[in-house]
């Protein structure tokens, strides 16, 4: 680790926070319907779709509308992927995807996971990338933010049923937040070197007389929303490592900014919606603290290098460079890795499968903690609020009072639903991993022998259930078993999680909002932030300890002992 490396990290995070403050206020205004500079387009779309944006929805109606939007997106994307061979904008002449892969990919993009069992430049037509994957990048992000807004409103008022209108939230977030940011960031990306063209590939004659086919496409716009929407699915198979998808250190820094800015802004939006900005700042503080710790751990592990390679004569100055490109530098690779797994993005600018054991442990743990640091757009905030409820419940148990948060009594129903949501992750991750490790057809997908092989499988189900999308890429994921089970894991991680969360929102919204008394536990100070951080670590992390001990931790000690597989 170097001082100049830490200066890079500090600069990027400072830019994130500086932008999140006004953006958090702006999203609050968008959610309240106070932003209307695209009103003609917005109202034309409502009218064409037969939507009354002023109609309030209870939690069930809100969830049903959300599920219908996502089901519609799934059907359209599945059809596009299966039929792309017969559709236009396919300069490379790619055929349709297999049913397994199309199912997995459609689920993946609809759930904001963007797990990719294919390699974009070798499988996807431009039409699939644009009208299929890019569109779902927008819609899955808007879905997450809309759900978070509904949950925020449950804390704001007392004795109400109405959580807002899903379609209005969904469309306003798309038109007023995601689209303008994507246009600006996309054009900046082009200026930095990202292609945006309908050409399929360029042919070059190399200086030594060989030929090189250089895959091209409409990259920049898709990559802009890929980061802003914490989707993470790359235009190219090697994701943000591809020089056209991550052309420079400045571009990678802007991508980190884009991944983080909306999730952090939403923590502040929460503060505005509930009428107490300090509450939002406390959540932001916990998120930022974890990201800093995770970045430091990855940075130290990767900058330290692989001891086996150092012993073989590799100069230690650059650190572990297997699976990394030179232009980003180790500091921005570490920050990107913590950011992409903390924020449920899943893009990578360094190949996680080739990380040192401890360097690879950190991204896996960040996902297992529930994707709340700061988490995906929207999903991070409502996930964090689940942990908040559990933290005030724990605090209430300690002092023997009925727990309260922002004047809402947290009772048995909410705590049971919160636990139901939190348990989705270990049930899916550990359950599917365990089954896959005893099925010969699944085990044959593993590339590396030894503890690292277990890590590859554990990471896959961690990433899918956490709706992250990054991978230990040595795993051969394009098989009927993994395409199907990972697809189910993604659906569980998204929908089996959010339905109980919305039920909590419905239940809390109906309760009266009590005023603060002298016995109220303040939830904006360092004491509560520390408690919340502890609850996240213990409730979110502890259940994965045995699996992590057999994977990355075992591998760390094996590596120190000098053993290879």
């Amino acid at each position, binding site marked *: 680790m170097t001082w100049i490396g830490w200066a890079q990290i500090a600069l990027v995070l400072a830019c994130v926070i500086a932008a999140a403050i006004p953006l958090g206020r702006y999203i609050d205004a968008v959610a309240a319907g106070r932003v209307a500079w695209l009103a003609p387009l917005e109202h034309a*779309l409502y009218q*064409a779709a*037969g*939507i009354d944006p002023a109609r309030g929805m209870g939690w069930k109606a809100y969830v049903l*509308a959300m599920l*219908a*939007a996502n*089901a*519609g997106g799934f059907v359209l994307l599945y059809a596009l992927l299966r039929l792309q061979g017969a559709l236009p904008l396919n300069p490379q002449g790619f055929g349709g995807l297999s049913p397994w892969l199309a199912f997995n990919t459609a689920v993946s993009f609809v759930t904001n996971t963007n797990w990719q069992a294919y390699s974009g430049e070798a499988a996807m037509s431009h039409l699939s990338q644009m*009208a299929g994957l*890019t*569109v779902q990048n927008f*819609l899955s992000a808007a879905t997450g933010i809309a759900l978070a807004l509904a949950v925020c409103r449950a804390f704001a008022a007392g004795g109400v049923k109405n959580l807002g209108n899903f*379609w209005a939230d*969904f469309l306003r977030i*798309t038109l007023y937040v995601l689209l303008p940011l994507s*246009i600006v960031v996309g*054009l900046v990306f*082009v200026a*930095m*070197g990202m*292609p945006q*063209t309908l*050409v399929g590939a*360029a042919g070059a004659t*190399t*200086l*030594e007389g060989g030929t*090189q*086919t*250089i895959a091209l496409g409409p990259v*920049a*716009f898709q990559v802009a929303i890929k980061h802003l929407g914490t989707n993470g699915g790359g235009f190219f198979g*090697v994701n943000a490592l*591809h*020089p*056209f998808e991550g052309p420079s*250190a*400045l571009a990678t820094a802007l991508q980190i900014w884009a991944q983080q800015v909306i999730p952090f802004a939403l923590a502040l939006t929460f503060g505005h919606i509930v009428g107490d900005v300090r509450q939002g700042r406390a959540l932001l503080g916990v998120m930022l603290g974890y990201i800093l710790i995770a970045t430091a751990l990855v940075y130290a592990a990767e900058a330290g290098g*692989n001891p086996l390679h150092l012993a073989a*004569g590799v*100069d230690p*100055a650059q650190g*572990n*460079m297997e*699976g*990394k*490109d*030179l*232009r980003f*530098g*180790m500091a921005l690779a570490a920050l990107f890795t913590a950011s992409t797994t903390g924020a449920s993005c899943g893009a990578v600018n360094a*190949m996680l499968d*080739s*990380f040192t054991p401890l360097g690879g442990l950190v991204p896996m743990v960040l996902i297992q903690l529930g994707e709340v640091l700061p988490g995906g757009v929207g999903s991070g905030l409502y996930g964090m609020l689940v942990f908040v409820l559990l933290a005030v419940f724990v605090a209430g148990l300690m002092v023997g009072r009925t727990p309260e948060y922002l004047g809402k009594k947290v009772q048995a129903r909410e705590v049971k639903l919160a636990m139901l949501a939190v348990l989705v992750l270990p049930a899916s991750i550990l359950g599917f991993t365990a089954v896959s490790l005893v099925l010969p057809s699944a085990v044959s997908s593993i*590339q*590396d022998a030894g503890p*690292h092989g277990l890590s590859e499988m554990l990471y896959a189900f961690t990433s899918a259930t956490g709706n992250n999308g990054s991978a230990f890429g040595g795993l051969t994921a394009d098989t009927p078993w993994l395409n199907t089970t990972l697809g189910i894991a993604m659906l569980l991680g998204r929908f089996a999680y959010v339905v109980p969360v919305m039920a909590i929102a419905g239940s809390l919204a109906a309760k009266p909002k009590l005023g603060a008394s002298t016995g109220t536990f303040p939830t904006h100070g360092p004491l509560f932030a520390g408690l919340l951080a502890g609850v996240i670590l213990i409730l979110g992390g502890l259940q994965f300890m045995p699996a992590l001990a057999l994977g990355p931790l075992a*591998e760390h000690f094996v590596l120190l002992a000098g053993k*290879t597989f």
Partner: protein
Amino acid sequence: MTAILRPAVAMVLLLTALLGIAMPLAMTGIAGLVFPDQAGGSLIRRDGRVVGSALIGQAFTGPRYFHPRPSATAPEPYNAAAGAASQLGPTSAALLDSVRQRVAAVGGPTVPADAATASGSGLDPHISPENAARQIARVAQARGLPEDRLAALVAQHIEGRELGLLGEPRVNVLRLNLALDALAGT
């Protein structure tokens, strides 16, 4: 049921037309007008022929050129139609063997890490300044040029940190080799 499905179907189709067709095409048009070079892939031409992209590494194997980092793309290195990494883990015996072979080929006692490891994209256009410096003697001998002339050329091609802060100092191999050809007057 229709009350739930109609807005969903209409919204998905309308937003697909807006976000998936109209916007990407508009962005392609604007990008092509304002940044035609970058939007088209930053291609480099010499004597009217495309010889590569400034952003994409290419394979060099002969002694007359500076060599890029090891690449794990298939079927040949630096296949820019299908970027790939080795994805080998830290305790992989196959990876350790490859590293040992590369160290032996470059010559020790120690070798810059970027010369001994495969990049993540398989298309890394850069090498470290130390890696470039280690290759000067070979290229100088193959081209019959004085080493200090090549050292000066390499020094000219070291790109510093972006904005003086971000990333690492590095050398673009294709640009360096193009300058090398221009220098030798071929």
